[in-house]
């Protein structure tokens, strides 16, 4: 029995060896060595996707010589800055709302003057794809995190990791990571499930783990072999469906082949109990009590950072909320302030904002908290010695939720990706908001920049017509 199965398996091994000569050696090196000598050069990418806009006035550092914006006393400004742009300020001061990032100040890069490629209801799902709407995207649409993961093809257990908080339940509108136009890489909201996915094997006894792996391989062998034979009997359209199935389970198979016995310290399994209600924390993918958001956020970020530090993955996204998320923020004193509803201000025209000062404080608090959480995961990566080669990006899908506008969306980077990016600076791009009459820069260029920093230089990404090239002001 099993000759066919064995030969298929050895083909898989041979294939991996041929295409990944260096990473294979890398995988065989003692884990301790990898963690020290190699850590410095390992490139990692983390992207935080924020929906429903950030209160831009409290986000950008003041231009040199300008008075810092005071949200308590200053009127809310026009949401798009009107300056001609073309500025680089290494001496910027962090805005008040972002003061939690002060220990990271020299690692930060603010990039002002970029538009999301899409706006309106597709903004979240196309933040990372560089296309205009899902419907009009080409079939081979792919998000930048997935493309970089595909090109780098690191020998890690997970090619990439999508983590969500309050993200599930909106179908395609929840998704920021895409393998193709028809295939999202969905995020996982439930921290208990995420822990099981990431760390259950890492926590197992080595002998047990080895046996477990052999059993799983055997289970997969029969199913994959059956599907391969089945595929031959089907028509072309059905074959494509089986190909999706095969690709998904081959990824499971590849993850088995990766050594998960490592010298890292997985966190303990999260409790299923809600700290605020003492009832069950999650029902499937649904967070039961909104008050638990900060607790769940911390669990998710701790696991993300540890998964990267343990080299379980090098590419990760945090998908916080969705464009349709209507949850409240009771821990910020906003028990009735619903995220999506609030983004549609009672009076949506920017000129009406000053009348909405109650809302201004709420938006300031949500911005401060969200960016603070981004700072937290960056700090975790630093503490775990996994920051040197890393770039973390905080991107917002919209600028003005009420108008569904995606012009000049707040973007913040942390880390240099191993010296590839300038840090400790505030860049305001020329031609922003067409002020200089030239071409406005779109997120496509941000993605080209991130790709280049990650060692995957690209000519174009997404909708080619939107690309101007990597942002030279940011690249070293």
């Amino acid at each position, binding site marked *: *029995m099993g000759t066919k199965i064995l030969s298929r398996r050895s083909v898989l091994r041979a294939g991996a060896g041929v295409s990944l000569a260096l990473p294979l050696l890398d995988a065989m090196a003692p884990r301790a060595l990898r963690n020290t000598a190699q850590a410095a050069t390992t490139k990692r990418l983390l992207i935080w996707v924020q929906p429903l806009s950030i209160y831009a006035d409290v986000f950008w550092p003041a231009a040199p010589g300008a008075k810092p914006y005071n949200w308590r006393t200053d009127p809310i400004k026009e949401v798009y800055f009107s300056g001609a742009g073309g500025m680089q300020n290494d001496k910027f001061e962090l805005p008040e709302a972002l003061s939690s990032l002060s220990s990271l100040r020299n690692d930060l890069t603010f990039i002002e003057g970029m538009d999301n490629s899409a706006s309106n209801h*597709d903004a979240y799902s196309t933040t990372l794809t560089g296309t205009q*709407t899902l*419907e009009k995207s080409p079939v081979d649409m792919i998000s930048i995190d997935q493309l970089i993961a595909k090109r780098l093809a690191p020998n890690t257990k997970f090619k990439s990791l999508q983590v969500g908080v309050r993200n599930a339940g909106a179908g395609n509108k929840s998704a920021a990571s895409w*393998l193709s136009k028809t295939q999202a890489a969905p995020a996982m909201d439930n921290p208990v499930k995420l822990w099981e996915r990431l760390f259950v094997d890492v926590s197992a006894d080595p002998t047990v783990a080895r046996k477990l792996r052999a059993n799983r391989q055997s289970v997969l062998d029969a199913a994959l072999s059956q599907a391969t034979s*089945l595929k031959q009997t089907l028509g072309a359209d059905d074959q494509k469906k089986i190909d999706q*199935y095969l690709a998904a389970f081959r990824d499971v198979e590849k993850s088995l082949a990766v050594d998960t016995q490592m010298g890292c310290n997985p966190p303990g399994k999260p409790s299923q109990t809600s700290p605020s209600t003492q009832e069950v924390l999650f029902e499937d993918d649904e967070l039961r009590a909104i008050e638990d958001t900060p607790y769940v956020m911390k669990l998710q970020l701790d696991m993300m950072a540890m998964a990267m530090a343990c080299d379980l993955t090098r590419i990760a996204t945090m998908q916080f909320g969705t464009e349709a998320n209507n949850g409240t923020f009771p821990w910020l004193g906003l028990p009735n302030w619903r995220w999506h509803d609030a983004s549609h201000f009672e009076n*949506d025209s920017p000129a009406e904002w000053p009348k909405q000062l109650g809302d201004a404080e709420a938006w300031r608090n949500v911005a401060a908290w969200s960016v603070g959480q981004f700072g937290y995961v960056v700090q975790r990566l630093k503490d775990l010695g996994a920051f040197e080669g890393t770039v973390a990006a905080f991107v917002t899908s919209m600028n003005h939720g009420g108008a569904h506008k995606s012009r000049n969306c707040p973007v913040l980077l942390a880390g240099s990706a191993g010296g590839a990016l300038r840090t400790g600076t505030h860049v305001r791009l020329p031609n922003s908001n067409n002020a200089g009459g030239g071409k406005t820069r779109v997120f496509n260029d941000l993605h080209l920049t991130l790709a280049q920093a990650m060692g995957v230089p690209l000519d174009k990404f997404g909708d080619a017509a939107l690309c101007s090239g990597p942002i030279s002001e940011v690249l070293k």
Partner: protein
Amino acid sequence: MRSRCTFLRKTSPLAMMTVLFGACAARINAEGDAPEGGSGGSSQNTGGTAGTSPCSAGDGTCSDAAEPSVIRRLTRSEYAFTIADLLGTNESVSGSFPAEEVVKGFNNNANALSFPGLLAEQSFSVTAQLAKAAVEKSSRFAACAQGTLDATCARQFIASFGKKAWRRPLSSAEVDKFLSVFTAAETPMLGLELASQSLLISAPFFYRIEQRGQGRTKPTSWEMASRLSYTLWASLPDDELFAAAEADKLRDRDDIVAQANRMMKDAKLVRAYRSYMSQWFDLPRISVAAKDPKVFPMWNTEYPALLRAGAEAFLDHVARQGKISDLFTAPFVFTNDTLAPYYGVAKPGSSAFVKVDLKDKNRASGMLTQGGILAGHAGFSSTSPTFRGKFVREQFLCGTIPKAPPNVNVMIGAADPNQTTREHYSEHIKNPQCVGCHSLMDPIGFAFEEFDAIGNRRTVENGKPIDATGDAVGVDVGKFEGVNQLGERLASSEDATRCLATQWFRFSFGRLESAEDDATLDGLTKVVRDEGTFAALMMATVQSSPFLEL
């Protein structure tokens, strides 16, 4: 793939509507091109563009393209029902699976359903546990003598368990393949477990595989058993269907009809129509309805859950024993004691939801005048003629409203406290960037203005009398005043009737309709019109040619 435009050349009411919506999308794409004269926009839509094919715009407006028929992947709920019926377990096994792609409101479009890596991973880990349950129940599948779990017994188990899980017999080569998993394991018990897991992660478990080609025109009895069971029960065939398939007794229409008649009486029928109704009426939307406590101090945050439960009970009633027209004209709701104050009726003395006739003659339009639909399709503090009109246009008239184009300011400026919502929304009709699509939505939504954002009836807004006249352009619904008249029109409209048949077609066949389905839709439309019950619609579906033929 079939030509996208075939569908549009026809002059059926639906095709006319598609032309209209094509025009709407084309208008948006020609952003900045003002139509001649403000209110001329809608008449221009109806007459002006109907003769030309919107496909020539080359902008993807003909998005109702015929899709290839492809094998159907089980949805999360079908997966859970299948496991429950296979193993007798009763827990949520697919809760950690990723959500399905949604096409025109339904999550079971075979073409769109992909296989995300997370689904592979999560099902792999879930089946490790499920396989243990399978082995515990192994006596159901193989009669092995106590303590003699040898290869013969394992072979018997794999053939028998595999047949049920895959809804068809395994070939001997396939049995051998899974037997090798058993043989390679450390202990026979573990071997059985791993073989079970392998069967449960196999493609024939996840997909409803049908063999086409080689001149075949009809499903095999095995394939027909699954067609019946997944269409009517959202799960695998029961013992009787398995026996009929084994005896090859699911080829003739009479045999198929006899099975379907039997299945219609089974309690499992609710699985299919509940999932359908919930998606068609977008019931999850009711649960997240949030209202401004400053404007609506009488709004109770328990209402969304109660209104949803009441809607579910109502839809259960319509599907089981009511008439389809009840959806638009029923003068009753389902309520319990807690919800009764919302409808201003006496407590029925029940915590369960029971049928209560409403005395309010202005709230006699079935789902259309239920609180969940009215509040769910309104804003935080004010109504939304756009949301309400879009709901009617898309769900009951099968129109497609494209998303607002990128970087168009979708906001119509601040509301004037002396204006009615209707006056405020008239900006959509005045603005050339908005009118193309909004003329298809807002004028329908205006009829709902007699209900505020929480669904309470009103006759005055901001000191002005409510104007609830409405208009559904491009279809045979015409002009109406108030929701009751809209409901009556929808119940008698041929376009709406065909749309109801079309929505069910999309759900039950897991695909969008194409030109080739016209005759089938004609037939289903006739059943909705003449017989008017869901039972008749379901029975007509299993006798339609796309069901009986490959």
